[in-house]
């Protein structure tokens, strides 16, 4: 036992992990995960433009559940924004809002991106909230107020609220993140431990050849895994692929490359396979919790969202849900593509810079 403690004391990475992992978990769960959603990005298409319609929209925004970021002219525009993932909720007030309100018919439509079931529930709750809905205005003008049953919620992409539809696409990303980072990280560290690396760096092989040679075979494995998850998702859970299959694979390749280069960087730092595994875990945990895979992005504090923006999985979850569930094209989701490419470039350069063909 004393021997274990002594060895542990000399393994600084492990020591850092012993403290780091619980602290990180606490912080993540405590601050970042909030199922009580607030500030969902919303688009407003107020086609009525009356004092009454503006009052209803303002009331909705005042709940804090939605945060209007886009003003659209038509519901069609809102649909586009929704598909691109720019907004997760759209509020449509039809041109004949005043007449519908007076007649007690459905007067406001809330469109919601159902590819995240938590967001979907939040929107449904929003519609049922006991709001003012222009009551104060109504009392002044003598007009009829809007009641909750005059607000309808239209859920897109996963109206049945099946959680597997929500989970499976993101799961591709989770599986790829775990295996790809670990594979490369451990593969290189293992060669160093076995002495293979000393032999390799004594040959004319260049650092980039060495790195690319390490990455490519695993990229193929990553695509194989993607295929397996897609097939199982399709056959067992009936998860749709509404966008193009090619886009799905391109997105998967982007994530695989980002993770492999991250694994390379880890391998330049880790001295043992055990350390490489721990470092992988250190990245994997926040990836799962913060990427939007388990908990909606909108529920997290701003600072945590910034951290999440760095993680490749965050961008992949947006891409893959966009493509598979909302039928978006890769082009429409370009900011996430750029983010993944940038991540890969930065990691690869850092790994090549850090990896010296030297033993000291």
């Amino acid at each position, binding site marked *: 036992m004393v021997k274990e403690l002594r060895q542990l004391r000399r393994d600084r990475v492990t020591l850092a992990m012993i403290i780091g992992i619980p602290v990180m978990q606490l912080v993540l769960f405590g601050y970042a995960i909030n199922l009580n959603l607030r500030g969902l990005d919303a688009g407003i298409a107020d086609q009525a433009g009356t004092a009454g319609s503006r009052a209803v929209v303002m009331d909705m925004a005042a709940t804090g559940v939605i945060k209007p970021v886009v003003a659209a002219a038509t519901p069609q525009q809102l649909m586009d924004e929704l598909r691109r993932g720019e907004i997760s909720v759209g509020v449509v007030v039809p041109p004949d809002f005043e007449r519908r309100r007076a007649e007690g018919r459905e007067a406001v439509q809330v469109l919601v991106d159902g590819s995240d079931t938590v967001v979907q529930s939040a929107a449904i709750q929003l519609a049922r909230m006991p709001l003012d809905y222009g009551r104060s205005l109504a009392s002044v003008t003598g007009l009829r107020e809007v009641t909750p049953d005059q607000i309808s919620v239209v859920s897109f992409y996963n109206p049945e609220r099946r959680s597997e539809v929500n989970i499976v696409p993101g799961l591709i990303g989770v599986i790829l993140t775990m295996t790809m980072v670990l594979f490369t990280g451990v593969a290189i560290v293992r060669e160093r431990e076995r*002495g*293979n690396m000393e*032999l390799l*760096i*004594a*040959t*004319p092989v260049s650092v980039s050849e060495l790195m690319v040679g390490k990455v490519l075979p695993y990229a193929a494995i990553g695509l194989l895994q993607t295929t397996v998850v897609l097939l199982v998702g399709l056959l067992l859970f009936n998860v749709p692929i509404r966008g193009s299959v090619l886009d799905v694979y391109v997105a998967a390749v982007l994530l695989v490359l980002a993770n492999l280069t991250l694994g390379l960087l880890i391998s330049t730092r880790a001295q043992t396979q055990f350390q490489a595994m721990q470092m992988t875990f250190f990245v994997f945990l926040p990836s799962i919790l913060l990427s939007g895979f388990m908990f909606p992005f909108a529920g997290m504090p701003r600072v945590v969202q910034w951290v999440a923006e760095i993680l490749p999985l965050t961008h992949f979850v947006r891409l893959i849900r966009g493509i598979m569930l909302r039928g978006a094209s890769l082009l429409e989701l370009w900011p996430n593509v750029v983010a993944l490419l940038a991540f890969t470039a930065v990691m690869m350069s850092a790994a090549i810079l850090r990896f010296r*063909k*030297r033993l*000291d």
Partner: protein
Amino acid sequence: MPPDEPAIRARGLTKRFNALVAVDHVDLTVPASHVYGFLGPNGSGKSTTIRMLCGLMTPTSGDISVLGLDVPREAEALRRRIGYMTQRFSLFEDLSVRENLEFLAAAQDIPKDRTKRRVDELIAQYDFADRERQLAGTMSGGQKQRLALAGAVIHEPELLFLDEPTSAVDPESRRDFWEKLFELADAGATILVSTHLMDEAERCHRLAILNRGRLVADGSPAQLTGALEGRIVEVVTPDARKAHRMLAGQPGVISVAQIGNNLRVLAEPGEDVAARIQASLRTAGLQSEAVTVPANLEDVFVATTGADRGRTADRPAA
């Protein structure tokens, strides 16, 4: 490179790891087409020196020229012309003999069309014809070393660095291994081989002895043993244990070792060393016969690396 140019020339080579000076101002000249031995106890800086010479480590100070190239500045160019065999078996244990060689051929940028011929050639030369599909990890120590050597020479390097290649190999495999080294040297390659085994050191054309990072001797085996002329005394006595204890503390005696029933004494240089030893034993009441004998490399090793590192029977050997 002109023919008389040495393959390796190092001046003032020094490597520090924080407070530890692993290699301390070593000057080294290795002539071309020689088998040059690097002898020294464990931790004397042999591996570190070799790694600096092939450009895998940056010296703290000193100049290195290998095959006319300035190292470490031109280390990349050097890598195409040297072969390096590490102390540990560093080929891939989960690849077969042929796969390992094919991989190394690719790493050395040998064109695809030449790879097969070269690999076939090596498999025949190094006696792997019947086990080219065997995984490297399942082979014996001697076979692994043979494979590692085949791998190190796949690109026909002009200079070969071997870091304790045979420390884990039985004597017969070791002899075969050295046969291969001489074949390579005959073909024109220069070989720098580190070892702590005396029988291997004796085979080298030239030797350098390192102790605690310093170069303590440099020359051909004959020159090195010749320098100890008259200082090695073999003592035949009925009570070797007692004579040993008696001589160990004597002034002028550097080390005493028991070889079978006899004692082998390394003495300070002087006149008539054997007679003086016999006389001092007689004073202590011990009958003995002492004669001067030719020195061997083990004596050189003990003389240069200090008695504490030697083979004195009452102290741990190096």
